[in-house]
């Protein structure tokens, strides 16, 4: 049976819009079941605020099963809160105790401007994918799926990288606001597979350079890996850097040929 936490002190970032300076506001959650998820706790808070004719706290969320990547939140300074490899929506109140003070902030990164309260704009991630995070394979005419055997280890490594949910925790956790884990994960996914070889270096150069337009630079803190809810390894960054270096050479040759 569930237990109840009492007297939680919530300190939540409120900001009415992108140009507002924003401030912390304090709330007290008198009682909440430890079976509730963190976002359900915020639902309860918001129901209360509507009851008091106040504006509820705006936050992004959707699937609530840890896969869509919509939810975010810095909880006590940690991206997605204290539990490792867990998104905020999968974090449950049993990880907290009565009387705790919980500080809730939006992702803080210049590439992710705040829309309202805890909601940020992560469309810079889409720009990176649009620049090359795909394999060009127009619909129709694909060869039989079993034509090219792919070693299980290769498929598994690609899968490890492609699990990225695009939540932005890596950027939020990084002191430089860098997106190398996100970008590296997509590059690793596609560059490891035989299908991805044709565009390997073109992709890498385009994605890295788009990333650099929006995000800070990586200085190997490794905070991104620690914050990643899908435990994506920073090895993908090494792979990206290696391919980026190569791309500068290979793409130049390609240009000189044409």
């Amino acid at each position: 049976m569930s237990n109840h936490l009492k007297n939680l002190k919530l300190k939540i970032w409120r900001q009415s819009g992108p140009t507002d300076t924003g401030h912390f506001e304090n709330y007290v959650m008198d009682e909440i079941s430890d079976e509730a998820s963190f976002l359900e706790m915020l639902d309860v808070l918001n129901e209360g605020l509507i009851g008091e004719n106040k504006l509820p706290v705006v936050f992004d969320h959707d699937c609530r099963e840890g896969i869509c990547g919509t939810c975010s939140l810095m909880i006590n300074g940690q991206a997605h809160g204290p539990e490792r490899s867990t998104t905020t929506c999968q974090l449950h109140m049993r990880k907290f105790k009565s009387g705790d003070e919980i500080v809730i902030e939006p992702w803080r990164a210049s590439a992710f401007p705040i829309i309202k309260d805890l909601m940020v704009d992560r469309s810079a991630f889409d720009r990176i994918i649009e620049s090359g995070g795909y394999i060009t394979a127009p619909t129709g005419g694909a060869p039989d799926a079993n034509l090219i055997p792919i070693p299980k280890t290769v498929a598994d490594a690609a899968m490890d990288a492609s699990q990225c949910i695009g939540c932005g925790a890596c950027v939020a956790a990084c002191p430089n606001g860098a997106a190398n884990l996100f970008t590296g994960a997509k590059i690793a996914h596609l560059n490891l597979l035989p299908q991805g070889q044709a565009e390997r270096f073109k992709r890498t150069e385009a994605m890295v350079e788009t990333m650099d337009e929006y995000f800070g630079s990586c200085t190997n803190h490794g905070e991104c890996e620690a914050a990643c809810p899908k435990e994506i390894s920073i090895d993908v960054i090494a792979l990206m850097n290696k391919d980026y270096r190569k791309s500068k050479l290979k793409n130049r040759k390609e240009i000189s040929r044409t």
Partner: protein
Amino acid sequence: MTITFNSKIPAGAIGDKWATYKEDAKLVAPGNKRKFKVIVVGTGLAGASAAATMAELGYQVDVFTFHDSPRRAHSIAAQGGINAAKNYQGDGDSVHRLFYDTIKGGDFRSRESNVHRLAEVSVNIIDQMVAQGVPFAREYGGLLDNRSFGGAQVSRTFYARGQTGQQLLLGAYQQLARQIGLGNVRMFNRTELVDVVTVDDRCAGIVTRDLVNGEVVSHAAHAVVMATGGYGNVFYLSTNAMACNVTAAWRAHRKGAAFANPCYTQIHPTCIPQSDPTQSKLTLMSESLRNDGRVWVPMNPDESRSADQVPEAERDYILERLYPSYGNLAPRDVSSRAAKRAVDAGLGVGPLKNGVYLDFSDAVNRLGKDVVEERYGNLFQMYERIAGENPYDVPMRIYPATHYTMGGLWVDYELMTNIPGLYAAGEANFSDHGANRLGASALMQGLADGYFVLPYTIGNYLAPMLNKPIPGTDHPAFKEAELAATARYQGYVDIKGSRSPDYFHREVGRIIWDYCGMERTQQGLEKALSELPALYEEFQKDLRVTGNAESMNQTLEKAGRVDDFFQLGMLMCRDALEREESCGGHFRAEYQTDEGEALRDDEKFAHVAAWEWTGDPTKSIRHSEELNFEAIHLATRSYK
């Protein structure tokens, strides 16, 4: 608008229809495609794949999603896999068998021609997704691996760990992103459809609301595709994402598109039972788990020992006992009812006695923990996070929950609604799953519609419109719809009552779940139809939305969606009431065999119920489309 239902099924033998259709379909020359604007609403598997493919072909495509990125659509949460009649395992699969299984799984309430086409293109989907780099699970030899899903006696399900939906959606999203990057698609994020506009009985475009600043804007197009998902959130608690809603489809319905079979909703047997009243959603545990997990309850209702202490002889493996030939992989509707009956009989397990066990101890003993972890690791981890128990040590507790809706906008063979120029794809349409969907078939249908059906059928509609003007957004019909939408959202703010949209959503959900859920009766449905209008009236008088309509306001978004759930809920109950038979997910207690199985009435109900909006959700008009079974004989569905 008078409603006509012409399903436009091509002539010929079942296996030739799609080929014949494609040969006869009108084409738009490559250089002319850019003269056509197509709107796609929704970026799940159906929407993203349709938009990407049409943009590749050369059409101008505008895409809308209420999410912050097209990659968030709820297709992403599908776990177990995608079916395809590849027969890579050499275990006797074929297009015909997938076709047959799908028709039978749907309890003979789907349209043969559409389902056969689905089975045909299923093989192309796997080729396409592999070419895009979807990292499906593989054998050590490097070839693709398969597993088995409910309602099938072959292994035809392709998967990527427990995240198949994620990997497929990212594949489709990446194809879409490529087209956005190339400038062939204009992408509108955080933008919700609030109305569909028709001019001269054709779809002329849509009206949207920008969720960030509340701006209401019109968009004109030659054709509009609704790939807006299902309506399972009408139940409040479901496995759907929080934002899944019926609004887009419902707004189309209110503009004349028929809504088909709304009572066909799927209750998925393996979800984590509710543990607390604050709970906002239910989480699915993939059907694939039933490959190795065994469903059981203790025989003694007062059993107090922990699961591992209950001896074999005192356990009832309900599915293995009731359905020996399919065992734990009996289809979803059948398995859900078996679980419900066990719990109703007081045999439920867990602190609230609201679940049944899904036990992996045999699998762990037989295969070893490593193999089990390899197959289901992330699902086990997810279970542990939510339930606080480790499924390697204690059996999972599961219970059915609303998961998918087979009903949706009525479409013909071309996936066009009865409004010319308005199409519906994926879960938003009604066409392929009849009264019950088989596991791993939703991903298949979404991608079939988007990649391999719509790009052909839309061309057939557009070709004759070449160089003919279409109504622009300055047409009075658009202005009227904009004003109505603005007034509608301002109206919610102006009520200034005392209850939040969530309060009303929970209440509607409770009524629908109690009376139009897993088991329905005439009496219950009539009760729901008397309670819902009263509650709806309260909603219209006592709703409270704080803030305004001109800025980001999640309470306001919710209010609009709950409003539409009310209206849909009433239609669902009416549909369930009038369908006096049991079939698939629609189980009317009055119509069952002596053994408690669904009892169809093919004489009276071998048809699709397509509902026409009249302005009052309790007074919609029921039309029907007869289902003709030529390739398959109607039979009683048995999984014994």
